[in-house]
């Protein structure tokens, strides 16, 4: 047992403080968008130049090929949304005006180093805005499965893949639980439903401070 991708996205959505500016990376993090309560004052930013990303555009009347997110999916714009050029969009990111960025990860090191754009020996797809977000957002949350499809740990003592940014990740949300990056490395915050301490320790490629017994997945009754 562990969290599904949807549950991971839902757990990540609960990380977003009311009244904050949040940028969601491409892939799984984008799926958080539909789980953000509409009345919480959480403003979603997409790096291609829109603050106030609304729900996906699905109805034919909503679709506009010039209203897209960074994953090139059609979206809507909430009331109070704004459009700007890419220089201002990244000024927002680099200048510390984005409170939280949720990014995918290939590897996260116990130092908070993040690798999410290239695997040695494989084709490089690109960098996109990940380096800017990792370096610029006030708080970076990595959202990723705990292991690769081949079962290798993604949480490691030291990244072996090319870095996106050093010492940037504050928290990691995986299918197995929630971990913080502290001065002493990974620290367990929460276990996913049905995941044992032994299982998460075994799946983590670095030492894991489990502190007191961490909470089990509480389901939704805490929201």
């Amino acid at each position, binding site marked *: 047992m562990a969290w599904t991708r949807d549950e991971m996205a839902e757990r990540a959505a*609960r*990380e*977003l*403080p*009311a*009244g*904050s*500016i949040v940028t969601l990376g491409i892939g799984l993090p984008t799926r958080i968008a539909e789980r953000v309560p509409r009345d919480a*004052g959480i*403003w979603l*930013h997409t790096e291609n130049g*829109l*603050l*106030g990303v609304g729900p996906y555009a699905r109805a034919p009347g909503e679709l506009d090929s010039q209203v897209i997110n960074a994953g090139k999916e059609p979206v809507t*714009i909430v*009331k*109070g*949304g*704004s*459009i*700007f050029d890419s*220089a*201002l969009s*990244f*000024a*927002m*990111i*680099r*200048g*510390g*005006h*984005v*409170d939280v960025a949720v990014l995918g990860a290939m590897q996260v090191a116990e130092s908070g180093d993040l690798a999410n754009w290239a695997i040695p020996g494989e084709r490089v797809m690109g960098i996109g805005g990940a380096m800017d977000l990792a370096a*610029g957002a006030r708080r970076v949350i990595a959202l990723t499965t705990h292991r690769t499809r081949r079962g290798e740990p993604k949480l490691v003592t030291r990244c072996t893949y090319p870095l996106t940014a050093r010492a940037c990740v504050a928290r990691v949300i995986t299918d197995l639980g*929630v971990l913080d990056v502290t001065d002493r490395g990974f620290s*367990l*915050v*929460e276990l996913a439903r049905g995941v044992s301490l032994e299982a998460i320790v075994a799946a983590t490629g670095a030492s894991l401070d489990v*502190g*007191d*017994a*961490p*909470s089990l997945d*509480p389901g939704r009754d*805490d*929201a």
Partner: protein
Amino acid sequence: MSLARASSSPPGRHLAKVRASVEEALEGLRDGARVMVGGFGLSGNAEALIEGVLERGVRELTLITNNAGTPGRGIFRWFEAGIVRRFVGCYVGPNALVARAIEARTIEVELVPQGTFAERIRAAGAGIAGFYTRTGVGTAIASGKETRVFRGETYLLEEALFADMALVRARRADRFGNLRFHRTARNFSPLMCMAAATSVVEVDELVPEGDIDPDDVHLPGAFVHRLLEVREHEDPLERLAPEPDRG
């Protein structure tokens, strides 16, 4: 390890930006603060906020604004009240008071070319620590600064200019803080909102979110922290046009 710990992120700054009074709008402004003030002379001033700083009684301010102003009016009254310790801007003007204060070393002045001034403020807001410009190369402005050659030309390194608070005027804002400025009153104001830890905007008109089309926003609310609606302004004309030519 409690659940609460995992979900207790404190709320961000982008809620409830509208302030009811000048005092609330200036909350937290302390002695010694670096304050950016928008406008160009008396044009496009945040009149209520500028006055409010005087009433607040803070001192030893670093004032970052284009122009030291005109005796008896606007931002110049900060100099008259003796609350400015340091001025960073482009133009002092023929003000005897400021000149004497500079000579007496009660005020420090850092004069900056206007384009460099604007770009340094933008840089602070944009996460750019420094940049290279040709402006000022070979002049007194370059004194003590590093130069570097790019493509055969010499450039000067200039650094970002930050502030604790920005006080600017806008024509219209929605409640999230998306701003529209009016005409040449835009000038440094959006940049200052980007560069300041806390940006305070005096707006002629507050409108609901959705009233400003996304394509028509001059500065997104991400850069705006407090809003104060002030419907009446003096908005003086600082000068009149010169007499028409004879020819």
